[in-house]
């Protein structure tokens, strides 16, 4: 019995070694498994910025009084808006908006300063480019807030009272609200699923195309040993990718590492079990590499979208929010964000770990059973 088990380990190790060599020998695959994660982390870290600032604004100052200049300067000084151009007429500003040069036009009519000094209502017009609703909301809010605050100040000074209520915000974890610390844990979830699911699915489909799976079956290697041996290199590469992303994240983007790394490691292993299992399932359902690849994509794209990596889950419609409960990426993204940013550990994250474990065991188990039936 022990001898048989010992021989099993030897065969498993032999398969793992062969897979490891085969993967590493193809420089291009190694390039893809190592360089692609790097490129993605850097791109996502630098290109994705949810903070809307420096919105290009056109100024049409028809008043040209000290008051109009003062308010335009102070409004454009807070960083949300940027003075991109000044026009003589509103029509010229709207034409610039048509060409996409400005996203906001501030129009002050003649008489603005005089109205303000005389105590009449001074009116400002803000015209927004609504194509990007997010940017339009933030730019519109910046203009409304500035003039609202000035109006409240002026009203208070005229009536001689202070505003009765005041809100004092205190922001936890990420006080300057930078995007990379939020984005990079999401990139991790996305990257692992792209690398492991699609590479596994295509790798096995390729063996089926070339008929080498059958050849291995003639040898004493059992299907389960073959499977475990094939999965090992990807597990190792997946963990390596996690370290790589964390290193780049801390060096380039000041990604905090506040929580328990063992919890992150355990979560990663359970998550990899799921993504490898899905790759395996897809490969058993497809005959060619092209089908395996498209199948992988059909899973990966919606899974990434529903994981809340790019946009918050809480902004999705209710029905879609329910679907996200079925998305393993969601739990891994939550887990890595909570560990890295919020310093959470097993005490807070046991639900996510449990869910990842359930997905991992169920999916990998089903995939392994199919694989065995197919070869057996």
């Amino acid at each position: 019995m022990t001898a048989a088990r010992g021989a099993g380990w030897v065969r498993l190790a032999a398969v793992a070694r062969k897979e490891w060599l085969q993967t590493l020998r193809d420089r291009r695959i190694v390039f893809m498994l190592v360089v692609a994660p790097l490129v993605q982390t850097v791109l996502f870290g630098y290109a994705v910025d949810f903070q809307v600032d420096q919105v290009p604004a056109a100024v049409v100052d028809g008043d040209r009084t000290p008051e109009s200049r003062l308010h335009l300067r102070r409004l454009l000084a807070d960083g949300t808006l940027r003075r991109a151009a000044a026009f003589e007429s509103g029509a010229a500003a709207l034409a610039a908006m048509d060409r996409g040069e400005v996203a906001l036009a501030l129009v002050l009519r003649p008489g603005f300063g005089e109205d303000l000094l005389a105590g009449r209502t001074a009116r400002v017009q803000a015209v927004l480019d609504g194509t990007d609703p997010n940017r339009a909301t933030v730019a519109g809010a910046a203009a409304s807030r500035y003039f609202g605050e000035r109006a409240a100040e002026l009203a208070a000074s005229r009536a001689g009272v202070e505003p009765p209520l005041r809100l004092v915000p205190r922001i936890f974890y990420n006080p300057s609200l930078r995007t990379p610390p939020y984005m990079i844990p999401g990139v991790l979830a996305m990257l692992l699923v792209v690398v492991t699911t699609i590479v596994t699915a295509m790798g096995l489909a390729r063996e089926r195309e070339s008929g080498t799976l059958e050849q291995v079956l003639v040898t004493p290697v059992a299907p389960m040993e073959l499977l475990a041996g094939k999965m090992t290199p990807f597990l190792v590469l997946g963990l390596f990718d996690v370290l790589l992303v964390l290193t780049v994240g801390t060096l380039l983007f000041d990604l905090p590492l506040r929580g328990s790394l063992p919890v992150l490691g355990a979560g990663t292993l359970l998550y990899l079990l799921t993504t490898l299992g899905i790759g395996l399932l897809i490969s058993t359902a497809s005959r060619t590499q092209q089908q395996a690849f498209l199948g992988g994509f059909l899973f990966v794209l919606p899974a990434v979208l529903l994981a809340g990596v790019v946009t918050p889950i809480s902004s999705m419609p209710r029905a879609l929010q329910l679907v996200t409960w079925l998305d393993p990426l969601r739990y891994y993204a939550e887990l890595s964000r909570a560990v890295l940013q919020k310093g959470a550990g097993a005490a807070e994250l046991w639900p996510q770990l449990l869910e990842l474990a359930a997905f991992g065991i169920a999916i990998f188990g089903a995939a392994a059973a199919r694989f065995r039936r197919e070869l057996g």
Partner: protein
Amino acid sequence: MNGRLSRFATRVGAMSFKEALHVRRDPRTLYMALVMPVVMLLLFGYGVSFDVDHLPLAVADGDRSESSRALVRAFTASGEFDRVAEVDPARADDLFRRSRAAAVLVIPWGHARRLAAGRPAAVELLVDGSDGTTANQVLAKADAIVRAEGRRLGPAPASAPPLEVQVLTRYNPAGRSAVYLVPGLAAYLLAIAAVLLTALTVAGEWERGSMEQLFASPVGRLEIILGKLLPYLAIGLVQLLLVLAVGAAVFEVPIAGSLWLVFALGLLFLVGMLGQGLFISVVTRNQLVATQAGALSSLLPSMLLSGMLFPIENMPAPLQALSRVIPARYLVHGLRGAMLKGNGLAVLWPDLASLALFAVVIVALATARFRRRLA
């Protein structure tokens, strides 16, 4: 001369026919090429929105007075916040770690008394800053609610407000995300499908060894490239039609400008993307590597550097420079201009010209790198 041209056309046609047969024999590919974009469009259109409401708000009410309850009601009555728990402010961290609350409203003891005495009352808002988008919205919404509540409590306002801002929104006055996203998504979905489908074809011929048979035939390099391109171009145009039709039917995305211009932009973009796929395929000669390279070179740039989701002008200068060689950038800009703003050729010709330039260069590169030699 005429004879040569007609022989050229015959051979390109034969290659296309062969490629179309491949696609037809494997209906799964076609199914996925046409069903995936629609599924993605529906998911993105319904799922992607940065506008958050019903934010989970925990309350730490140290005052327990009529005034403090009125303030909490002002938060929940708007629909922007849902009250999820009553907590001790010291435990806010624990709630955030479990993602149970996005913010904690702390009303200190003596709130009602200060208000009654006419002194300013400060309330604290603890915000989970880990998700910057949500945190920004929490801050903006809480600010507006407290300001409105302050006005309600304050003295009766003077007859006329001293300053008033009037906000007008053009092109997409309702601020619907789908209207913004569909033109961007068209670029994203076309790029993925076009690059990836063609990335596999030439690499597949090399792997299966059928490339040698092609070499034995009189078909030339450019003829092989063009022949492989045409059937996928047809699929791509059908995809574009599908995306536009679903966008118009489901999300009421307008086409304010010329439909011909939209298709011209789409056609040039598709040729460029198909050329990029072929180029990758010709260089790698391996399906696995070709797909990874294809995904990396089409999916990421078309999503991140095209301005589809994130404004290009906010990126660091090197990435802005890089985005200039990404065709998706010009398609996204062109489609938004033509569909939402009703721009014509006068505004959009630089986009058309850039897309055409990319298409010509990449097809020429693919042809040049394609050697009629065995490895």
